[in-house]
């Protein structure tokens, strides 16, 4: 039984459709990476799952309960298992609250039976768990660096032992030397606490380091879904290939495989047919008329491209 199942989800803002036909499952203890460029709908998807935006259609099932049909009270109770860490570590903490109070607040709400001493103990232990000192609980967010603030954000999200942690670009605002510390912290927490993660990032390398499976999203649709290994070794969708090819490599490092010719940019994005065809170097006639459905091209590997089979076959030949 999946922990989270999203079915036919669509989110509409005014006349703009931000997400459509979103289907995926996330299992307990699993990390699902979500990659895409800015404006592709990654964060909207996270917000729709948390019911921070109202989807126009679809179902979001968490532990077999449809969140979109939940009463406010039911939703309140589910939220303890459904936590999020945001991109901007400082902006997501209340500047007038000590970090101890910020981490303690979820306990006050969801575990009212705990007395103050027990809460303080839990907060101290959590601070240490994320690599800070228990004595730092009395300080304010501005006294911490970006990386430390992100640790505090993670501590606040993890204090209730949620079943699902959504991370929306949690390392994008951090320096390279600090990013790795946060990635390792998330890996350690997952090993010990066993939560599932929905990890959103535009940084493919970071996603690869954390994820079991990856979804690639382009202009509001899932265009490819696969295990992390298959996606990075054998990308099927031209957009995924372009994304991988565009990652700047250090000299001496292997370039990502499946490199694509440079993306074209001919005119405005199309409204009919495949949404990627105006940038796609492989586009053919059918791409202009039909939206490619997300089809399974090998077990566990899905792509929304009319030419996915051919492109995969070509990659296979090139690799021989």
């Amino acid at each position, binding site marked *: 039984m999946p922990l989270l199942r999203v079915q036919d989800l669509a989110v509409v803002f005014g006349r703009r459709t931000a997400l459509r036909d979103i289907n995926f499952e996330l299992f307990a203890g699993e990390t699902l990476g979500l990659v895409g*460029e800015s404006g592709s709908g990654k964060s909207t998807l996270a917000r729709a799952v948390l019911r921070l935006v109202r989807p126009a259609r679809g179902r979001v099932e968490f532990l077999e309960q449809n969140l979109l049909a939940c009463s406010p009270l039911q939703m309140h109770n589910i939220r303890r298992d459904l936590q999020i860490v945001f991109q901007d570590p400082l902006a997501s903490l209340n500047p007038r609250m000590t970090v101890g109070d910020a981490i303690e607040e979820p306990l006050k709400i969801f575990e009212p039976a705990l007395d103050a001493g027990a809460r303080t103990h839990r907060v101290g232990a959590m601070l240490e768990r994320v690599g800070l000192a228990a004595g730092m609980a009395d300080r304010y967010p501005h006294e911490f660096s970006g990386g430390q603030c992100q640790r505090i954000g993670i501590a606040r999200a993890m204090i209730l032992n949620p079943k699902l942690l959504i991370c929306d670009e949690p390392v994008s605002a951090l320096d390279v030397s600090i990013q790795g510390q946060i*990635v390792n912290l998330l890996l350690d927490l997952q090993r010990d606490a066993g939560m599932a993660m929905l990890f959103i990032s535009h940084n493919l390398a970071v996603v*690869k380091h954390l994820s079991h499976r990856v979804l690639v999203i382009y202009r509001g649709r899932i265009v490819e879904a696969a295990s992390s290994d298959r996606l990075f070794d054998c990308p099927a969708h031209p957009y995924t290939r372009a994304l991988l090819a565009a990652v700047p490599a250090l000299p001496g490092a292997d370039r990502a495989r499946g490199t694509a010719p440079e993306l074209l940019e001919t005119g405005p994005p199309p409204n009919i047919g495949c949404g990627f065809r105006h940038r796609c170097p492989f586009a053919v006639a059918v791409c202009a008329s039909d939206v490619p459905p997300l089809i399974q091209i090998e077990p566990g590997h899905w792509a929304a491209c009319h030419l996915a089979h051919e492109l995969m076959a070509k990659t296979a030949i090139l690799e021989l």
Partner: protein
Amino acid sequence: MIPTLQIEALSVGFSQRDAMIQAVDQVSLRVAPGECVGIVGESGSGKTQMFMAAMGLLPSNASATGSVRFEGKEILAVNSALKRVRGSKLTMIFQDPMTSLTPHLQIGTQLAEVLVHHNGASWGEARIMAGRMLDRVQIPESKRRLHEYPYELSGGMRQRVMIAMSLLCRPSLLIADEPTTALDVTVQAQIIELLRAVREEFGMALVLVSHDLSVVAGLAQRINVMYAGRIVESAPAEELFRHPRHPYTAALLKCIPSVSGQRRARLQTLDGQPPRTGEKLEACAFAPRCPRSAERCRIERPQLKAKAASDVACHFPERS
């Protein structure tokens, strides 16, 4: 040969309440004609302030000492000399192309103004030349774009407009400060390609400032690594990547996640935090995080030995 840019013993300080915060500390740098120099450092390392000082763009609470010579002429705090070259022969583009453009003026007007102001061109001529320059930076339908406002362009297109604007007067040096940081990875690759192409075409020198070593890797011939307001290592790009000599450079290279790396593997990290900007340091700024630090590092601050082809500010560098 007169270097295009020669910075000597440049220090930049910010006065805050009663304290003086040292952002750049005695930095020297030389950019030869046509050369591409990369400046890499984390946030707070002083990389941006160094060039803001050179361009005379520091806020009023900042002060700069030392010397900045552009094509042999002193421009630091010499307003007349700076005004003659800034925006024409010496240009700079910034991270956020939205806030770099005036929101209520058409692109064409903003571009033409540069030529009218610096070269005394007529508005009619200037608009035609602006259109041609948009073609050079591969903006499709340049004629129509001239009449558009910044909000009508994507982030990548805006950065292309900024590049076009910086090239109008055929500069001898373009300083690009994090030009791709706000952009998606596929667009980032295109902008880097564009910078490479225009540098060759115009034969200008380029300073590329970034927090991301891999962005600089593809373009820079020489790389300077900054830490806590100083350049700690300077070497030809290839050599720096093959044999980093400063422990900070070596650690930074190791902690960059790679798309060809192992899935769900812990990342190498650099423990600790950089010193707070402006902390007065008698010792090596990196010593608290350095695996090789010894007694001497905590007493005496290591200096660059200047004038050597590759240079490192470390008492115990890795052997080259």
